[in-house]
C-alpha cells in the first residue's frame, strides 16, 4: 500500500512534465506575411526604466504604421534580460527557438552585446544591435558576427569629434571619471585618442565600478590641476555623480559621454548639471520639426521626454520597415535582409543615417549642453540638452581610416595608455 501513493504521485508528476514539454514544443506556425521580432530589454533591476524607453520607442513607431510593415503583420515580443548578459543569451535562445523570431534586437549593456552576437552566429539569426555600443562588434570582431547589424552607435563614435571639440575649447588637461567596464573604456578611449592627437592631455583616469552610488572615495582623488572633468556614467550612477561633485566643491567644467546626461535620467536631475556638455547622436532638444513632432508624440503617449534609447529603437523600427517595403512585406531570409538593411539611407529623427561597410551607422554627432528652458512648445522650464555644435557624417573610425584604426587594439582600461598620469 505504501508504494501506491508514491507510484500515483510519481505518475502524476511525470504526466505534468510531459504536458509541459509538449506545451513548450508547440511553436507558432510561420505565416507568410508575418514578421516576428524578438526584443531584449531590461525590464527589472536598476535599468528597468531604460528597458521601458527602449521598447516604447519601438512600439511608438509600430503604432504609427498600424502594426504593419509593408503588408507584414509585426509580432513584437519583448523579453526581460534584467541587465545581465547571460540572461540576455537565454532569452534570445527562447525567442529564436520557441517563438521562431525572424530577427532579434535590443539588449542594453555593451557586455550584453558581446554576449548576444555569438548567439546570432550560432543560431544563424539576425541580431540588430540597436543599443549595445561595444566597439568591436563592428570592428575587430565583426567577421565573427556576420548576422549582426548595428543601428545605434559604437561607444567611441561620438567621443572622437568630442575630443577635437575639447581642444577647441582650450582645455589642456582633463581628468576622467568613468564606469569601470568595457563601455566606459571605449567611450573614454575614443575621447582620449582624439583629444591627445590635437594636443590635449588626459592626466588621470578614475574607474568607479558600474553601479557605484557613493563617489565619496573617488572625488577627493581628482587632480587639482585639471581644466575639466570628463565623466562617463550609466543608469542610476549618472544621477548621483554631478550632485556629489558639486557638494565636494568642485567647480570645474564638466563634460561627459552621452549616457551621463541622456534624457532617460535628465528629468530626475537638478540644477547641478546646468552647463554640462556631452556628445551623442541624439538629443531630445534637436530643434527641427521632425524631432519636435517625435518628442511631442512620445511625451503624450508615455508621459516622458524620449531618450536616445527610445529614438534608437524608433529609428531601427523605421529602418526595418524600409527594408520590408523593398521586399513587398515578405521576409527575405537572414542574409538578404542584412544586405538590404546595410544599404538603407534614412532621414531619421536623429538626422541622416546610413550604415558603413562594417554595418555600423554613419550619422550626425551632436555636442549638447544642459540648459534650463522651455522647448518644443511645452509650458514649463525644464532641463534640455541644447545642441551647440553638429559634426555631420561621423563614422566609427572618424578621420583615422579603417585600416589604420583597426591596427590599434580595442580601447580598454589601459589603451590608450595614460602617458600623462603620474
Amino acid at each position, binding site marked *: 500500500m505504501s508504494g501506491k501513493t508514491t*507510484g500515483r504521485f510519481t505518475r502524476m508528476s511525470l504526466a505534468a512534465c510531459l504536458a*509541459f514539454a509538449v506545451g513548450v*514544443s508547440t511553436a507558432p506556425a510561420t505565416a507568410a506575411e508575418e514578421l516576428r521580432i524578438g526584443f531584449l530589454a531590461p525590464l527589472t533591476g536598476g535599468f528597468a526604466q531604460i528597458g521601458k524607453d527602449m521598447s516604447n520607442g519601438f512600439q511608438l513607431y509600430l503604432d504609427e504604421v498600424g502594426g504593419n510593415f509593408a503588408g507584414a503583420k509585426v509580432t513584437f515580443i519583448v523579453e526581460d534580460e534584467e541587465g545581465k548578459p547571460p540572461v540576455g543569451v537565454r532569452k534570445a535562445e527562447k525567442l529564436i527557438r520557441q517563438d521562431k523570431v525572424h530577427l532579434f534586437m535590443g539588449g542594453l549593456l555593451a557586455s550584453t552585446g558581446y*554576449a548576444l552576437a555569438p548567439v546570432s552566429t550560432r543560431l544563424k539569426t539576425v541580431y540588430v544591435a540597436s543599443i549595445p555600443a561595444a566597439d568591436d562588434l563592428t570592428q575587430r570582431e565583426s567577421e565573427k558576427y556576420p548576422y549582426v547589424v548595428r543601428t545605434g552607435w559604437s561607444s567611441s563614435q561620438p567621443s572622437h569629434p568630442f575630443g577635437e571639440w575639447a581642444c577647441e575649447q582650450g582645455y589642456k588637461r582633463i581628468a576622467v571619471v568613468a564606469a569601470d567596464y568595457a563601455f566606459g573604456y571605449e567611450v573614454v578611449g575614443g575621447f582620449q585618442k582624439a583629444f591627445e592627437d590635437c594636443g590635449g592631455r588626459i592626466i588621470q583616469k578614475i574607474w568607479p565600478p558600474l553601479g557605484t552610488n557613493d563617489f565619496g572615495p573617488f572625488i577627493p582623488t581628482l587632480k587639482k590641476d585639471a581644466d575639466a572633468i570628463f565623466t562617463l556614467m550609466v543608469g542610476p550612477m549618472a544621477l548621483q555623480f554631478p550632485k556629489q561633485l558639486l557638494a565636494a566643491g568642485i567647480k570645474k567644467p564638466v563634460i561627459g559621454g552621452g549616457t551621463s546626461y541622456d534624457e532617460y535620467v535628465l528629468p530626475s536631475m537638478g540644477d547641478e548639471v546646468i552647463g554640462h556638455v556631452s556628445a551623442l547622436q541624439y538629443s531630445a532638444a534637436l530643434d527641427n520639426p521632425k524631432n519636435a513632432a517625435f518628442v511631442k508624440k512620445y511625451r503624450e503617449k508615455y508621459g516622458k521626454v524620449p531618450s536616445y534609447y527610445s529614438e534608437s529603437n524608433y529609428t531601427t523600427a523605421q529602418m526595418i520597415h524600409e527594408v520590408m517595403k523593398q521586399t513587398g512585406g515578405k521576409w527575405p531570409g537572414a542574409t538578404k535582409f542584412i544586405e538590404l538593411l546595410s544599404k538603407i539611407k534614412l532621414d531619421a529623427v536623429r538626422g541622416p543615417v546610413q550604415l558603413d561597410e562594417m554595418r555600423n551607422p554613419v550619422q550626425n554627432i551632436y555636442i549638447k549642453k544642459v540648459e534650463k528652458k522651455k522647448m518644443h512648445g511645452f509650458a514649463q522650464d525644464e532641463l534640455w540638452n541644447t545642441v551647440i555644435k553638429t559634426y555631420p557624417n561621423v563614422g566609427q573610425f572618424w578621420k583615422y581610416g579603417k585600416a589604420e584604426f583597426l591596427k590599434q587594439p580595442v580601447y580598454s582600461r589601459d589603451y590608450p595608455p595614460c602617458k600623462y598620469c603620474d
Partner: protein
Amino acid sequence: MNNRRGVLTVIGALVALAIIAPFTSSYAIILITHALIFAILAMSVDLLLGYTGLPSMGQAAYLGMGAYLTAILATQFDFGLGWSFWVVVGLGILVGAATAAFFGLFAIRATGVYFLMITLALGMCVWGLAYRWNSLTGGDNGINLPPRPQFGIALANDVTYFYLVLGFFVASLALLYVLVKSPFGRSLEGIRERELRMRLLGYNTWLHKYIAFVIAGGFGGLAGVLWAHMNGLVSPEDVILTTSVDALLMVVLGGPGTLVGGAIGAGVVVFLREYLATIVPWWQYVLGGVYILTILYLPGGLMGIPERIRRRRALSGSPEQAGKLEATSH
C-alpha cells in the same frame, strides 16, 4: 520512502526523460539540460543540507570556479575542445573540490546561522573576484567560449549535449546515492541529527563535515564545466548570491535528504525563471510565493507530499493503521 520501489521509479523517470526529450522542441531541450545541470548543483547542496545539516549559502562559488576554469582553458589555452574535454571535466571537479577544501578550513568550524553567514561571505568573495579581476575573468563582460567540444560526437548538437549532461546527472546521482547509503553517509546523517552524540561516540565530526563539503564542491565544479558550455558564456552574474539561494530553495522545495528532491526542485525553479518569466510579467510574485509557501507549508518539500498524504489517510483510518504507520516511519 520504500527504497527498491523508489529506485525503480527514479530509473523509470530517467529512461522516460531520455526517450522523450529529443522529441520536444528545440527550446524545451535546452531548458531540460539547464535544469539537469542545476540538478547536479542542487544534489550537492542536498548532500550538505539534507544529509549533513549544513546550510551552505555559497555553493554557486564552486559552479563558478568550474565554469571559469573551463572558459579560461578554452579561450586562453585552446584546451578542452576535443578529447581534452574530459580532462577539463576532471580539472573542473578538482578545482571545485580544492576551492571547497580551502574555504572549508574557514567555514566548517561554524554551525547554524554562522555557517550560513560565512559561506555567504565566501561566495561573495568569488563573485567579487570574478567581477573585478578583469584580466583573468573578463570582468562584467565575462568570457565567451568557442563552440562546444567535438570528439567523434559533436556537442554543438543540443540533443547530443543533453545526453551528455543527462549522463553526468545520472552518474552524479548514482555516486551520491552510494555515498549517502554508505556508513560515511550514515555518519553524516548522525551529525545532522545530533552532532554532540556523534562526537561522544568518537567520530571526528569536523572531518566528516569537511569531507562532505569538499565532495559537494567537486560536484559543483562539475556542474560549472557543463554550465560553461551550456550557454557558451561565463559571467559574474552566474555566481551572484541569488544563484546560491536558488540552489537552497531547489533542495528545500524538492525535499531535503532525498537527493532526487533537489533535481525536482531544480526543474521547478528553472521552469519558473526561464519559462514562466517569458509568459507573464508577474512571475516574480510566483517565485517569491513559492519560496514562502514552501517554507510555511511544505517542510518535507515536494518529495514529502506522498508521505503526508499517506499519514493523513492513515490518521483518518483505523487506529491500528495509524499505529503501524508510526512504527514504520522514522
